[in-house]
């Protein structure tokens, strides 16, 4: 694009310097804390972290909820996105607007709303007892179910939007053609839609998974100290124990989890393409 390579470099320099100075350097310092002990550089703090049964439980719970939220968001996301792209242009715009609307409401407000909805006297429990599905109110709050519902609601729009734009870029005739040639709906999805929209799925999946890992307010309010996730554990280590060493270990684990998820999803997408 530039005649002169130096010109391009000069333009990118301020941005790079800024990012290096206020992002990369501090992150590097913070993360190196976890590898440093009084005896020098070591991996011991990480072994110690995973030696604790509670820490392992928190790690596995975070991984499990993140994966579950991403998987369910993908299923609901495909169904919703597919029905959106089949709409006429005006209706499609309105539907996308509705999907994005929750993103404009503070996650704190949305999460508090769940406390009211999922409470003993909330609408869900009233419906359950009214329909005779349960004799007494079911406890949702401060359970993994509550955190799952909260996270799914929080990040589902990101999945829907990613998949909608992926489906919009898919050739319009692909699905009808597959149907004409005798493919059932499962085959249509697996052999046509999925391969053609995998980029959208990778983006949506990464956003939802990373978001679920790093969400703080939702697990803090809906899970509390009985359903600790890595993010709430990190906060607890800093505010209760002033323990920045453990906190930086958790931050590192969260970063590695996010990167791994992205790599894994990309790998899955390209693996299918090669076949």
């Amino acid at each position, binding site marked *: 694009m530039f005649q002169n390579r130096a010109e391009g470099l000069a333009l990118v320099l301020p941005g790079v310097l800024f990012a290096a100075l206020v992002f990369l350097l501090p992150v590097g310092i913070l993360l190196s804390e976890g590898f440093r002990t009084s005896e020098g550089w070591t991996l011991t703090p990480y072994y110690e972290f995973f030696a604790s049964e*509670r820490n392992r439980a928190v790690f596995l719970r975070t991984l499990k909820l993140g994966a579950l939220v991403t998987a369910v968001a993908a299923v609901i996301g495909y169904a919703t996105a597919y029905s959106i792209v089949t709409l006429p242009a005006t209706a499609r715009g309105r539907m996308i607007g509705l999907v994005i609307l929750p993103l404009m409401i503070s996650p704190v407000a949305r999460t508090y709303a769940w406390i009211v909805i999922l*409470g*003993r006297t909330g609408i869900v429990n009233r419906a359950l007892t009214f329909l005779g599905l349960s004799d007494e109110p079911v406890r949702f709050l401060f359970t993994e179910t509550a955190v799952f519902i909260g996270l799914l609601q929080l990040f589902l729009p990101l999945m829907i939007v990613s998949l909608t734009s992926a489906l919009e870029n898919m050739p319009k005739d692909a699905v009808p053609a597959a149907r004409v040639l005798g493919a059932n709906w499962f085959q249509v999805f697996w052999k046509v839609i999925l391969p053609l929209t995998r980029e959208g799925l990778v983006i949506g999946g990464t956003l939802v998974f990373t978001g679920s890992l790093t969400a703080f307010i939702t697990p803090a309010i809906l899970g509390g*100290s009985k359903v600790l996730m890595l993010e709430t554990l990190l906060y*607890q280590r800093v*505010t209760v124990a*002033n323990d920045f060493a453990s906190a930086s270990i958790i931050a590192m684990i969260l970063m590695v989890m996010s990167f791994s998820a992205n790599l894994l999803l990309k790998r899955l997408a390209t693996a299918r393409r090669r076949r």
Partner: protein
Amino acid sequence: MIKTILTTGVALALCSGAAQAADKKLVISVYGFSQDAFKEIVYTPFEAMCGCDLVVETGNSVERLAKLEARKDDPEIDMAVMSTHDALAASRKGITQSIDTSKLTNYDKLYEIAKDPLGDHLGIGYTFYATSIVYRSDKVSIDSWQDLFKPELKGRVAFPNVTTNQGPPSLYMLGKAMGNDAADLAAPIGEIASHKDDIVTFYVRSSQVAQLMQQEEILAAPVGRFAWGAYTKMDMPIKWATPKEGQTGGMNVMIMTKGAKNEDLAYQFMDFWLSTDIQTKLAEALVDSPANAEVKVDAKIAANLTYGEDTVKSLNLLPPAVILDNREKWLEEWNAQVAQ
């Protein structure tokens, strides 16, 4: 561009320099709650009286303690208020100095327990609170700390997390009710662990309990008296338990940093805060229960506070040294048994 930034920076530096030079300055470090009331009742009148600037830093105790420690050799904060055990931690770290009580004209008016809770006058109590159990009197009755595990409270009770200020004292009272008040709290932590599925949540903020009560999610929970105001406003029959083992609680103290740059102003401020007039106003605004025994408030206000000689005498407070020396062990025990 760079020139503009530099000019702005210099201008800003000049402005703040000018503001600092204008007057005497006192820097205090306090809890973040009720700051509007404190400003009106304490800060603004004090500034008018001393002709000085009051710089108020707020935050939770861990943050504030960390900050004090970081600036130990060149303290920017002159005085701070903390819980007794945090104040003891600060003094063990060499951040604080003994307070010369002869410089406090209101010192003799304080309740005995507030006069020297840490020893060596390392802290002066300015308020305390009772901790007991709030409960729905139409659904359950509470006469003992062990009543938290009554069958009718299964799945309807919240308990403070061990990391909160209410946690250890509540565990201590539970142990007492079980006939085991050892400082290791092993018995009550074991008891909580065996009932953990019956406990809705281990709360970390008192305001959360009020919300759960309001939503009828829970019917009982141990809370600090400072949170009582929220329950009196609810349209529900909610009572404050007086368990047969007694109530527990906590105390907050004022501390003076070692090498404080504005020691005289800090003494003046402490004395002002402890005066009958200010302590009465803080009590009437339901901000802090008075540590000054001369404070008189009417029965309606008193009912919302931890007030009066008899109440003060009935408090089973955990000694700060016990909290400080056992805190890590309690947390370990709790994490191993309860927080899985």
